[in-house]
């Protein structure tokens, strides 16, 4: 018990002192996951909007697949990206394995389906309401998608926050393709896993605390946005 409280005391001390290792690890975590969410939104939002509007044969099957991809296990994504990036793999020549770029790729693959599937739902509901008005005004499909994305912005930011939350908390994919190399690919989750197994509880706990604070902040943001969008939608 004493050991436990002592670990907490040291963890707080690390956070308050702004420990250099700690900051480096948190910084890389944010860089990797924020980049991943940006790329995933760049791909996932237009894809989701297009899936919401387009009517084609096999659309139902595509939706089932995209929805299923939301539940991709991180370790499986890590393994697949590892195989593609490893020396013998199809993308091996780029030498990306065990770099932050590899981690960004893995997390993007993990969360792009989440962004696409959730935004599809948001946009589809809006589209049902706006469709005739937009066609009456002669909007092209591209213009309609842009307007729908803009009008769904608050709900879509919530979607992006959900994706970011999953990325920043994920450990299975980044540990496989990043390798948890000190000063290079060590992020919060992989560091926690390693330091805990090494017995360095203060650092693990300090990182855990920061991770919790980030998760709480993301959720608080999502909630206040939802309230705001509600007031805009209904007055």
């Amino acid at each position: 018990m004493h050991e436990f409280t002592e670990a907490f005391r040291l963890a707080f001390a690390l956070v308050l002192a702004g420990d250099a290792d700690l900051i480096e690890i948190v910084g890389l975590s944010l860089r990797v996951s924020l980049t991943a969410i940006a790329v995933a939104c760049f791909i996932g939002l237009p894809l989701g909007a297009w899936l919401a509007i387009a009517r084609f044969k096999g659309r139902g099957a595509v939706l089932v697949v995209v929805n299923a991809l939301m539940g991709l296990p991180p370790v499986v994504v890590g393994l697949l990206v590892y195989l593609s990036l490893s020396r013998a793999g199809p993308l091996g020549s780029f030498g990306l394995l065990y770099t932050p770029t590899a981690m960004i790729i893995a997390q993007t693959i993990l969360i792009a389906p989440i962004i696409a599937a959730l935004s599809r739902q948001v946009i589809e509901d809006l589209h049902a309401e706006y469709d005739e008005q937009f066609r009456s005004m002669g909007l092209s499909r591209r213009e309609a998608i842009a307007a729908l994305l803009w009008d769904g912005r608050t709900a879509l930011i919530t979607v992006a926050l959900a994706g970011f939350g999953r990325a920043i908390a994920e450990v299975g994919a980044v540990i496989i393709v990043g390798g948890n190399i000190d000063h290079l690919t060590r992020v919060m989750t992989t560091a926690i896993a390693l330091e805990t197994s090494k017995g360095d509880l203060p650092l693990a706990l300090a990182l855990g605390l920061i991770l919790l604070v980030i998760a709480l902040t993301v959720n608080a943001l999502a909630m206040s946005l939802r309230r705001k969008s509600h007031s805009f939608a209904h007055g």
Partner: protein
Amino acid sequence: MADPIRTAALTLNAGGEDRIRALDLTLSATGTTVIMGPNGAGKSLLLRLLHRLIAPTSGTIHSTGRQAMVFQRPVMLRRSVEANLLFALRRGPYAQDAANKCREVLTGIGLNTRAKQPARSLSGGEQQRLALARALSLGPEILFLDEPTASLDPTATLAIEKTVQRAADANTKIILVTHDQGQARRLADEIIFLHNGQLCEHTLAAEFFDAPTSPQARAYLAGQLVL
């Protein structure tokens, strides 16, 4: 000025039934045509067909020129009052001067102090006024209106009618659906009476109200249930 609107054997089947039955219509290129008929007669469907939001099952429609429509339930974007109007202004003939025109229009419909407010927080009547202003800012040659005053108080109704009349005077073709006989008398040049998707009557407004020829229209005007 737009050409007259013509339909030939216009038929629409929805849900396994013919909702519009072989309509042959010729609507003059200017003036106000009012479409009347009981609930479910097919008035809204006919407007959608003429505006080409839905395709007919068979038959043809001939209409040219810029069109705009105010729906039975106004569709407000999740944006401010001003942004809703600008969205349309930027697509119409006033695109060059959209910001100034926007202020002018908002003042005209008495919503200038509400410009920054979410459009969906406006009252039903205010939303209808905004929806009409938005449609007009597209500079339509043909304007479709589906019961634009259905839930409005008398003052708001007259305000809308004044705007519609002004557009008609400026040579915009008006095609208006209403259940309000007073409104039809005030605005209509000609009346189309629909029942069960069929054209019962298509006459000058004065003739329609003085001496309706079809039994369905007579019963409707007398306030009897038409079955």
